[in-house]
């Protein structure tokens, strides 16, 4: 019973470092074990199609996490993270299909390229605040599908046709299907990145990021290098979203400009808001939301799935103005208060 009540409590507490301090070590261990079981259970419980959907949801969650770093924690609104997602996907696809690289080796390259691009985008971002930055990044997302088709890079990107790649085979010693293997790969990589991000956010750098977001003047007066923080936040954010892109390329085994339209950026933004802005766990919910809610909407009405999706979104934001993560946070707070009184 203790594990059942301990799980949501601790998980919700994870993004809030203050609450973490009070959690004893054994509870934390239980939490990690619970998380691992929860992450691995679908391997046996779900059939291949649902496993594939869940794989995609985890990938989207990772992309939302990237966006959350720069928009949620650092307060720089980006409507162009689909561009980083595309760059990551194309890095992996190009290296795998033109150079026969193994998938694993493409990850560091894709991470480096995306971080560099993100760092580059971070610079103009310094001069642009709020809505202007949102529009600039939006323009980036609009441009990327067209740039991918441009004749200068067409030989590499495959132009409108896109590129085909093959997902990595499971190692011979593991008795898993390719779908199970790709799920394992995605979940492991996502777990590492979620952990690293959590580690980054709860520490000195995380506090600096949030201070920059909440009160830049005060942060600067405290001796923080705002320019460097903002550009680096963009770089890390692009890196995380780019790796999500790489994973999506192998999971789908196909990339094309039409896979990375402006809607990807909007979807990520919706996922971030629905999951919870400035919340690590919220990113996970965001990923699940953007993958499953359109399907729910469609099962309600085939005539106008977009309308239903909109209604669900508005309804959720009305009930949970600060996203799933906010709801959980409030619930646990109430539970604790109830427990102590």
């Amino acid at each position, binding site marked *: 019973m203790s594990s059942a009540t301990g799980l949501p409590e601790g998980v919700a507490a994870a993004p809030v470092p203050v609450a973490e301090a009070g959690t004893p070590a054994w509870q934390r261990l239980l939490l990690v074990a619970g998380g691992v079981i929860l992450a691995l259970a679908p391997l046996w419980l779900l*059939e*291949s*199609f*649902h496993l*594939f*959907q869940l794989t*995609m949801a985890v990938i989207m969650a990772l992309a939302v996490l990237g966006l959350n770093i720069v928009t949620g924690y650092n307060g720089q609104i980006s409507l162009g993270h689909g561009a980083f997602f595309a760059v990551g996907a194309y890095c992996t696809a190009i290296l795998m299909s033109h150079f026969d690289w193994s998938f694993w080796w493409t990850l560091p390259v894709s991470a480096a390229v995306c971080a560099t691009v993100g760092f580059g985008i971070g610079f103009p971002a310094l001069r642009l605040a709020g809505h202007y930055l949102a529009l600039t990044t939006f323009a980036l997302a609009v441009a990327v599908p*067209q740039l991918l*088709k441009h*004749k200068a890079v067409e030989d590499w990107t495959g*132009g*409108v*046709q*896109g590129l*085909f790649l093959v997902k990595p085979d499971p190692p011979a010693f593991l008795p898993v*299907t390719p779908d199970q293997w790709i799920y394992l790969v995605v979940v492991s990589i996502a777990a590492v990145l979620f952990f690293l991000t959590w580690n980054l956010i709860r520490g000195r750098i995380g506090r600096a990021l949030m201070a920059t977001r909440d009160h830049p003047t005060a942060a600067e007066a405290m001796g923080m290098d705002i320019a460097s923080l903002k550009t680096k936040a963009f770089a890390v954010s692009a890196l995380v979203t780019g790796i999500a892109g790489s994973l*999506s390329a192998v999971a*789908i*085994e*196909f990339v*094309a*400009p*039409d*896979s990375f*339209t402006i*809607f990807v950026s909007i979807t990520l933004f919706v996922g971030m808001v629905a999951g919870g802005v400035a919340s690590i766990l919220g990113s996970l919910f965001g990923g699940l939301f953007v993958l499953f809610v*359109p399907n729910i909407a*469609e099962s309600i009405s*085939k*005539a*106008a*799935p*977009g309308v239903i*999706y909109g209604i669900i979104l508005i309804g959720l934001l009305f009930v949970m103005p600060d996203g799933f993560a906010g709801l959980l946070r409030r619930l646990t707070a109430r539970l604790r208060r109830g427990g102590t009184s």
Partner: protein
Amino acid sequence: MNTTRRSLLLGAGAGAATLALPNLAPAQEAPGVTANEIRIGSTNALSGPVSSYSVISRSHEALFKRLNEQGGVGGKRVNFIVYDDGYQPPRTLEQTRRLVEQDRVAFCFNQLGTPTNSAIHRYMNQRKVPHLFLATGADKWANPREFPWTIGFQPSYRVEAQIYARYILDQKPNAKIGLLYQNDDFGKDYLNGVRDVLGARFDAMVKTATNEATDPTIDSQIVQLQGTGADVLICGIVPRHAAQAIRRVHDMGWRPMFFMTNVSISASVVMTPAGPEKGVGVITSDFRKDQSDPAWANDAGMNEWRGFMRQYLPEGDQNDNNYTYAYAAGLTMIQVLRNCGTDFTRENVMKQATSLAPLELPTLLPGIRVQSQPTNYNVGRQMQLQRWNGRSWERFGNIIEGASV
């Protein structure tokens, strides 16, 4: 393999349990086929920027409804399942996997779009699920050697270009051809189609120029092609550029035999902006009956279609030519199902889909027959030429068939 077998057993078990009859035969005769039902899947852009194409799926739903009311096919009713992919390739893969793995459809039919179908091309062929009569004009679907489970439907751009080239060879064997095409998949299909027909003579006969979809004008390309002394001009370009080309060619006093892709022949979007009188003589092609053409006002086939629309899709816009297209594709599908007899295994469905005897359809031009052979997956391969007379397109000459490559 394990999963497939297990899920098959599960499906059969579930089917048997729901029926709750002492039936010794397995409930599922073949993937997606039960004693009284055939499940067929499709994806379409029900939402998003190109959702105007979603009427194609509406039409199929209505057509299968009519079929079921008339007793179905092979003693079974058709259960047609459509999912929305929003024209996003990753969603197409997701939804197609749902159709194949969760809904266990027998096969997929008339899924919309080139990038979207590209994303599932390999999946369908690896799984050996028939991927039938796709709603896209790309040429790559007719590749029986590498992708035996995928087959297209309408004449591809490449077939269209082959038809122009054949007509040119027939009329002007010594023509000097100027070919202007957009530098992408769409445009390159015209290059390939002309090359298919001319073969070794291509280099001697054809001078090419290309443009980008983003170019503001294409004047310089037109001037360049005129400068080569060409007396025939073929254009594989989008409507905006087509209007410019028609006007420019006329204004500079050049009078070539002028072929325009049938993507860019709309009277309101291309001909009127170009100046209706400037486009007189421009040649294009079609395979459908144009419902606005008075010639078909009392046509038996079109009246059959209008009756179907009135009865099953009373709210559908009869001026939308996606409906005539869908009616033709749907009837082709039904013919294939009829040819299957009572054997609806994936192997037999694919066999029947790829050996379809020439079939005339009510909404296609008289004389045009859809067909397929195991070695030729171009289902629509014939078109008729038509010429702009200043007010409308006028059909002329015989039905022409593309070269088989």
